[in-house]
């Protein structure tokens, strides 16, 4: 998998921050180097020689020197401050934009997964954010329970998802690819497993993806999958999940309409393979301790049927 480094930016916003970071590292490195060299030198040069019992000359201070080392850090800090203000403005959507532009994407934090809405097209998804390369997406972030925090180091700033206080940010990627991220504000037991990925495509591929998400898959009537679709109703899965084209419309858990197109399950906990899906359905908490999906006590047959059904949802 790729490196998820802050210094591997792939969007203008992340670049701006990384540049500030490099500036900061240079400043801090210089200051630190000076201090380490000074302290080492002093420790060597001014250590007491054995047998030397004279008190050294008593120096009580030097006002000019003190003033100098008050003012120089002040100037450094001033420079850093100006640079950060410039960066801040660059990275953030201004309040004027927030007020009159509709968001391209709404992310809603849940205890331990991400609900995604593309209000302009109506796509609903979870945990995997698809974006077109080079487009500045205005993202609105909300939470329905506790505070979460969106963090995909390479493509965007980090920002909290706060209940009752929607936030906005830019999300953009320069290169196609998969960018890994994770919830970064402690939000309870499964906080470690609240991962997410941003998948950037070229515009055409993105359009294809979007169209695919809008397509309502037919409900299989026969075979394993047909059995699965029935079980989905009977086993109360629909109390929590929604699947387009069926009666399942609940939003407690992730939307499963196009589950098969996603690469992971349980917010990045497992790779989305039929085997893993089966494992998940048998015992979600075994892989994601604390997950709010209950163990539905399904038999192996039932699991296989449901897996077949969910795999058919493309």
């Amino acid at each position, binding site marked *: 998998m790729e490196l998820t480094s802050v210094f591997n930016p792939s969007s203008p916003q992340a670049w701006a921050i990384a540049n500030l970071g490099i500036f*900061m590292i240079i400043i801090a490195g210089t200051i630190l180097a000076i*201090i*380490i060299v000074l302290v080492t030198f002093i420790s060597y040069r001014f250590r007491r020689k054995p047998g030397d019992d004279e008190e050294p000359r008593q120096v009580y201070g030097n006002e000019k020197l003190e003033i100098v080392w008050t003012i120089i850090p002040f100037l450094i800090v001033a420079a850093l*401050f100006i640079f950060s203000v410039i960066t801040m403005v660059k*990275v953030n959507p201004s309040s004027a934009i927030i007020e009159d532009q509709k968001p391209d994407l709404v992310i809603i934090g849940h205890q331990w997964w991400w609900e995604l809405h593309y209000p302009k097209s109506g796509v609903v998804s979870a945990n995997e954010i698809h974006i077109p390369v080079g487009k500045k997406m205005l993202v609105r972030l909300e939470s329905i329970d506790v505070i979460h925090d969106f963090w995909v180091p390479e493509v965007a700033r980090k920002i909290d998802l706060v209940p*009752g206080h929607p936030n906005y940010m830019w999300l953009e990627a320069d290169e196609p690819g998969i960018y890994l991220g994770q919830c970064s504000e402690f939000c309870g037991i499964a906080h470690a497993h609240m991962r997410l990925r941003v998948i950037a495509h070229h515009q055409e591929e993105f359009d294809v993806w979007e169209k695919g998400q809008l397509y309502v898959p037919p409900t299989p009537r026969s075979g394993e999958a047909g059995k699965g679709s029935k079980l989905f109703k009977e086993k109360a899965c629909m109390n929590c999940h929604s699947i387009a084209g069926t009666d399942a419309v609940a939003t407690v858990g992730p939307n499963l309409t196009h589950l098969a197109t996603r690469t992971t399950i349980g917010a990045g906990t497992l790779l989305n393979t039929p085997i893993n899906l089966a494992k998940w359905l048998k015992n979600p908490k075994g892989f994601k301790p604390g997950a709010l999906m209950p163990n539905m006590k399904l038999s192996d047959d039932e699991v296989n049927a449901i897996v077949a059904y969910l795999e058919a949802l493309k």
Partner: protein
Amino acid sequence: MSRIPWVPETTEPLPRVGESEGLLTWAASVDHKQIGIMYFIAALSFFCIGGLEALLMRIQLSRPDNNFIDPELFNQLFTMHGTTMVFLVIMPFLIGLGVYLIPLMIGARDMAFPRLNALSFWVVVFGGLLLYYPFITQSGATDVGWFAYTPLSEKPYSLNNGPTYWALALLCTGIGSVASGINNIITIITLRAPGMTMRRIPLFVWLLLVTSFLLAFAIPILNAGLVTLLLDRILEANFFAPSSGGSAILWQNVFWGFGHPEVYILVLPAFAIICEVIPVFSRQPIFGYGFMVGSAIAIGLLAFGVWGHHMFAVGLGVPFNTYFSLASMLIAVPTGVKIFTWIATMWGGKIYFATAMMFATAFVIEFVIGGLSGVAFAAAPLTWQLTDSYFVVAHIHYVLFGGSMFAIFAGIYYWFPKWTGRMLSERIGKCHFWLMLIGFNLTFLFQHMVGLLGMPRRVYTYPDLPSWNWLNLLSTIGACVLGFSVLIFIFNIFFSLRKGKIAGNNPWNAWTLEWLAASPPPVHNFDEVPRIHSARPLWDLAHPDMPDEPESFNTGVTR
């Protein structure tokens, strides 16, 4: 150690405190020295507990996808670790140090309110027990992080009683700390020896005075936050419940309104220790007493105006971030004054590297590393990447361990002779120092990198991404080295209590009044206190021909 001129011994050495007394006399004691020592014992015990919690976490984090500890326990561990280290280790230790030393340094017999002093101590201990009570009983300790962000710490999301006990425990320690703070302030302004004007008190006392003001004014903010949280949890009030219109962010404002002054409560007394240790071992007066006082006051005042830097990622708007960014960065200026002043004090001296001085020197460098990463956070956009990542964990340990704890160790090696009448073994001490220095940097230096690579904090497990594994492994190895060095230190204490060299009144040939008293000091501290003419009374006694320059700090004279 070779001795530069002798200070006359004014009292006969007395038996060790506690040797002739039973346990009960300790429990009922109102003597500031006994209370101070009880603070040290409590703090060191809690340090072992908090450290063991950290070790458990590190073991779990040594490999990706590890299953050594389940997430419920892990979450309790880091919460208890943070809370313990902050409220039950560093604060009690530093407050205890103040309680022990302030009266001695200003030539008083005891604190202004000895009974209040004892009460503060016992309330803090009680708080500690309250905090650990649910950990030991089956209901489970608090698991919401040491800043207990709402709404996670509210009833609907934390059904166990952990956070309730947590809040009650912090209320107790808070009340104790406020009382100690006020007690310190009044002791310092009313009980100074004749001639000891405000400009002649040791810098240690000055910095504790500033800390005490922070204690008296910052902790009530936390107390208010805690009672509102408790009302929410117990009486179903709605302060922080977004579902009924409450604000999730309000708690953060209140908590950090306390929390940031708190970190200076944790570090100013550490500065205070360094302000004593460095001059004595460099055989020079502090380079610019006035600037040290002024910068401490500036830090104390600024500390109340920067809490928003913990909330840069909350999304409070560019103006908010800009202002808090500015205020936070400004703190680097007075702190820098302190660092440079210490370095200048060493310059031109004749430095004797006792273990205390080694810790003090290491402190200067480690704290600067922590401070600089702090300034990086103060640049809000960097926080927008790095908050709540392991970079923060690295920052807090560089300032809290490399800062406060290193200073505490310097202080222990420096004052242990005064407390017990015996020196800590220097040989074992050096062993302890080097192991700790290596272990510490090994543990936390790499956390900067793993943070920059995108690892969030407070995760009980992590995926096997490139470099994450070995960085975390190194960190775990470092933690084990660190733990080993702590064991050596504990051994040193027990060993030296029995076998240590007899100290005498003033083994380091230091200049402040506490070294005039016997080691350990008798109950009444001093038989007589000399009239004070300068900030270094014992220097004056030793060098009647070349007295300390009382107005030196403003003229910058050289002698």
